[in-house]
């Protein structure tokens, strides 16, 4: 790379014998800066191409091919995408994923926001302890947690049914019952993510200027009014971020349903009983790595990606509110 120097400066170097014959490239400052910038970006760009762009392009290419692992690849155009419409398992997994999202995301919001507001209050003692307790599920290994919950939900000897029995309530078969398996797994999904949303809300709450809250109180606003008229509107950017992250997580959920519905010499992909916990990523895994239809699996994965993008854009459109301090 050549330094950006005025033409006159180039002549002093050019005066040295043979080197004078080589014309010097003089770059404008903007080009010079851009080259440096791209130079620094290059390592990240190479990584991005290698681990994101190339696999994505490969998956897109695969999605228009029929490739059973046991056979040769065959171009089928949009055949795999058209096949989705008539596949009951696709619709079942979509139904389960939407149910999961519609249940888990609002539940996390409804629990984590009040907890964050509570833990943000000045009068709370042992605040650090509470924050740690709520955050522990986030850092706990998902597989281990799912196993423990599986035992807790055991219909005959699990602690959940024991507690329900003590209260005189019914004892569902939970993970062994197609009607109750998904709610049971969703409980774990909520429990696991409350801490993460809470921490994000806490960070958001601490960016709200205290002056606004004080001014509202001086004007006679009740705590409820402060929350609804000051806190919540000013928390909107955090709320949007949390909702978007939670919805993306919900569409990509895999580990908890996989582990909680696995086991028992089923010789099948988890997601049972009777596909009642077959979330979309489990469906993709089943198609691609258990039924070995890689092309069709890739088409399903692309549909999931498009769904996530579409849902994210719609959410941002619906809940994002522009404001200025």
């Amino acid at each position, binding site marked *: 790379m050549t330094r950006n120097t005025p033409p006159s400066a180039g002549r002093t170097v050019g005066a040295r014998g043979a080197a004078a014959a080589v014309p010097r490239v003089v770059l404008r400052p903007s080009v010079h800066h851009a080259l440096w910038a791209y130079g620094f970006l290059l390592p990240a760009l190479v990584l991005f191409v290698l681990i994101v762009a190339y696999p994505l392009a490969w998956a897109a290419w695969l999605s228009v091919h029929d490739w059973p692992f046991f056979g040769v690849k065959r171009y089928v155009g949009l055949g795999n995408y058209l096949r989705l419409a008539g596949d009951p398992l696709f619709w079942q997994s979509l139904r389960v994923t939407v149910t999961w999202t519609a249940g888990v995301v609002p539940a996390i919001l409804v629990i984590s926001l009040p907890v964050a507001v509570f833990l943000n209050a000045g009068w709370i003692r042992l605040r650090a302890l509470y924050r740690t307790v709520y955050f522990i599920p986030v850092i706990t290994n998902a597989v281990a947690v799912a196993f423990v919950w599986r035992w807790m939900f055991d*219909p005959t000897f699990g602690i959940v049914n024991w507690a329900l029995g003590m209260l005189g309530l019914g004892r569902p078969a939970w993970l*062994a019952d197609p009607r109750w398996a998904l709610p049971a797994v969703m409980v774990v999904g909520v429990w696991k993510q409350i801490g993460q949303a809470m921490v994000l809300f806490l960070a958001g709450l601490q960016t709200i200027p205290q002056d606004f809250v004080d001014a509202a109180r001086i004007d006679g606003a009740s705590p409820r009014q402060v929350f609804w008229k000051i806190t919540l509107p000013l928390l909107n950017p955090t709320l949007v971020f949390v909702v978007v992250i939670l919805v993306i997580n919900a569409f990509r959920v895999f580990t908890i349903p996989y582990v909680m519905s*696995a086991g*028992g*010499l*089923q*010789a099948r992909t988890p997601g*049972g009983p009777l596909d009642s916990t077959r979330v979309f990523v489990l469906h993709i895994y089943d198609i691609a*790595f258990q*039924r070995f239809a890689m092309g069709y699996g890739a088409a399903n994965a692309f549909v999931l990606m498009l769904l996530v993008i579409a849902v994210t854009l719609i959410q941002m459109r619906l809940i994002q509110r522009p404001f200025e301090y």
Partner: protein
Amino acid sequence: MRVRALWILCAALLLVAPTLPAVAQPPVTIVHWQHFHEGRANALRGLVQVFERQNPGIRVQTDLPPYEQYFAKLLSSLAAGTGPDVFQIAMENAEQFINAGFLAPVPASVATPEFIRDNYLSWTTERFRRGSQYYGLPTDVQHLVMYINDELAREAGLDPAKPPETWDDLIAAARRATKRDAAGNIVQAGLDTRYRWAVYSSLLYQYVEGPVIDARARRATYDSPQGIAAWKVAETLLRGPGAVDSPRFLPGQRKWEFRRAVFYINHPVNRSVIAALAPDIKYTIAPIPRVAGKKLVVPGHHWAYVVNAKSRNVEAAWKWVSFLTSRTGQRTWMKNAGDLPATPSLLPEEPNAVVRDSLRFVRPVDYVGVCDPIRNDLWDAIALTTTPVEQLVRAAAEKENACVAEALK
């Protein structure tokens, strides 16, 4: 003087050179994959040690993924061209792997077709044969037997020495042994049906007289009247107040090994699981029940060790497979894992008379491809829904037809 010494040294090196590569050559490493099984894992470790001692130039590196992930890992690696040198596949996968060109044929230097024909039970090699060429050697040879927890059986007023002989007998005995709580929930199963495959295969291969899966016609026949009759027995076992087990009872858990079930249909290899997990259980092994008025039929199943067609160490790989399936290898599997021998002359070494005798009644399963999940789901649907069995069976058979056609295309 120095030049002469140099010449002498060069001449000496030339003389010694032919022996040098053998000394300096690094050992060949064979990568071996098979799915994890409590009993077979220990046996394999022992076999690796013996083989490496006998073959100092070959190292065996084993990987035992859980069954649930085994085929996903295996096929991904084979498709990527990075598969293991040696791996095991089930008999129902033979056609797909051979047709896909994934397998190297057994070289005559390891075993001639005549040797294979003469030394192994024919049903344990047949699915791996194309013409006169074989593509795998048998391992994990299994049929089905019935385990009875002696103590729990006596508690229920049953005599383990007089096991139920027919399905009707078993249903009656299992009902006596099933315990329920005040709300009617099962707290002790009469028959542990966790291993669905074992129970429905025992039924299907006894009730259906022709093929259960007709590979030529590429269709499942278990929606025939005989097949429906078999699934109706499953309904009796699983539905209503007379059910002897339920997927709702200890879902996914080893009920029998946890002393929560009296009868259990499984392979002889389960003896090693019991030895590892519940060594204190006193149990009796009985033949599986038969259909009243008919002779006993026992479903037989096996896996095979095969060599990756793309292996760079085919010769060493087959040497390892040959050792695993040799008489020494089979004795180790029999003793440590509870497997059956593939070589008939080793059968007298099987200590259990029922296990030994049941082999005479074996009818090898004719399942094709990765279609077990369809039948397992059918089992669950019978247990967990009230949909008429005929309707469920027909829907499952249709799915299996598509699965078989896909596997054989």
